[in-house]
């Protein structure tokens, strides 16, 4: 602008000192590019932990369903011996499946939170921070993984109480945590992507409910792939939940599994999920 007034009096440090705001006058310097992703993921996960600390009811109520699965379904089918598990007691066979299932149920409704954050203006503000969309989505995805991890820990303890002989090898448990985090990142990104498409909470609830059961039953969480009809095998082959369950069984029970393939698929699924959700997040910002 031609007539823009120049030469305004320089800002004096005095008023800032009066309010004691001097330390707030310097804009924080940007971090190097590689720092952004881990820093944002860390910040989002911390928020999730803080929320869990303020309100633990969700942690308790969410333990009910997996407990029922293990207690009723697990105990019953252990007695019936209807499902060929390769010599493992059915309850043991089921426990990793229930860990995966309960973590998925949390992640698949994570998009509801995104929609709530959109409606309340929280998301708007997050989108105006120096955070690339992909880093924001990754942050949210792994924050949902924090919840899923807590859930997995609860189910592990429940299963142990019911007499399931799970491993306590720390390295294997680390692998379990990684598998739960990656799968949870995928399912929460799936949920956020759907949120970006349907845009309202009610529709997302509907879609979420419609896909959780097919994902669950179309996986090896309850029964081995060998007993499935061919079409269901095809579903299971493209279902990341199956790879997660396979990895968890291998790590927790020591049954034969395909750990390398499982982790590759989970990594690829998480990356694809983050990409899709970051592309669709813009629709929520409009």
């Amino acid at each position, binding site marked *: 602008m031609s007539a*823009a007034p120049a030469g305004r*009096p320089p*800002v004096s440090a005095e008023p800032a000192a009066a309010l004691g*705001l001097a330390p707030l006058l310097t804009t*924080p310097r940007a971090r190097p590019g590689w720092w952004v992703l881990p820093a944002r993921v860390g910040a989002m996960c911390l928020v999730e932990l803080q929320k869990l600390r*303020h309100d633990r009811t969700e942690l308790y109520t969410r333990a009910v369903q997996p407990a029922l699965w293990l207690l009723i379904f697990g105990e019953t089918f252990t007695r019936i011996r209807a499902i060929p598990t390769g010599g493992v007691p059915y309850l043991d066979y089921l426990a990793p499946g229930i860990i995966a299932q309960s973590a998925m149920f949390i992640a698949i409704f994570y998009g509801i939170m995104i929609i709530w954050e959109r409606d*309340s203006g929280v998301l708007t503000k997050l989108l105006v*921070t120096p955070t690339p969309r992909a880093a924001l989505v990754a942050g949210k995805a792994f924050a949902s993984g924090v919840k899923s991890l807590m859930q997995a820990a609860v189910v592990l303890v429940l299963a142990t109480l019911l007499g399931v002989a799970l491993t306590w090898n720390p390295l294997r448990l680390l692998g379990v945590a990684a598998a739960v985090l990656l799968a949870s990142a995928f399912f929460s990104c799936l949920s956020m992507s759907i949120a970006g498409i349907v845009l309202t909470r009610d529709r997302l609830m509907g879609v979420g409910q419609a896909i959780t059961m097919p994902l669950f039953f179309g996986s090896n969480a309850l029964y081995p792939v060998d007993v499935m009809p061919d079409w269901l095998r095809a579903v299971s082959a493209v279902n990341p939940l199956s790879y997660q369950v396979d990895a968890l069984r291998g790590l927790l029970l020591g049954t034969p599994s395909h750990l390398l393939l499982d982790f590759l698929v989970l990594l690829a699924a998480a990356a694809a999920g983050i990409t899709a959700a970051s592309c669709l997040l813009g629709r929520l910002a409009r």
Partner: protein
Amino acid sequence: MTPDAVTPEPVTPAPVTTGTVTPEPVTTGTVTPAPVTGTTATGGVAPDAVSCRGLRYSFGRTKAVDGVDLTVVSGEVFGLLGPNGAGKTTAIRCLTTLLPVPAGTVQVFGHDAAKERMAVRRMIGYVPQQLSADASLTGRENVALFARLFDVRRRERAERVALALEAVGLADAADRMAGTYSGGMIRRLELAQALVTAPRLLMLDEPTIGLDPIARTGVWEHITAIRAATGMTVLVTTHYMDEADQYCDRVALMHAGRVQALDTPERLKAALRDRRGDDSAPTLEDVFRDVVGGDLGASEEGGDFRDVRRTRRTASRLG
């Protein structure tokens, strides 16, 4: 844009001399607002805080912003005024990089909002129209999150967060859940969230909407005090004309996606007084009515209605 509407140049900001026409900040009383320096370290003239040329944005067939030109000078409190639906929020969302800039150019301190998003975001603090604090976190956690998202270093973080909360008068309530805050407190918490990142430009979208009169004054007093203390530029939208008159250095009157007039409230009022040629003391609302031809909304009476075309010419002369 029709030919007789506001042309790009008339919105040139009349140079505002601080102290003469600038309203005094309420709380600090003696301190005149201290705009940031007009020259950079290199000796060149500092770029304007916001420079917006021919900005347009449509939602489908709704032209929400229809060719807006405006310049916010570094250090001023600039008010974007207009009734609901005028396009204020859409315009501000283009400035914040939330919406793309499909037509026109938007620069924030010389950085293009379409091309240098991250650089622009680092310089702005944004308080959206909704009350946007996270109710399931404490006030302190809400502010600390934004400190982290703007890369405030760990060793300064606690101090900065505490200072920001103190500056908005929330030090005592800092460790309560934000869900227990009143509307005015949440607005102040949002101010702290913006303040902790030391933005050069603070953008507030209807900061006092839905607040009771006392909370409104409280929010404004904090905005003015913070601005006086930090010298940051403030861009605020509002549909409360009295607030704009009292607290803004310059205002742009926006209607139907366009800026219809732009100047200091005093000059806008003086110009209307001259046009009317009587001794009445018009308010900013009278100016607005005059500029948009009384067409403020469906509920308005036609008493003040003037020919829109004439009004537009008035607007361009005014601007």
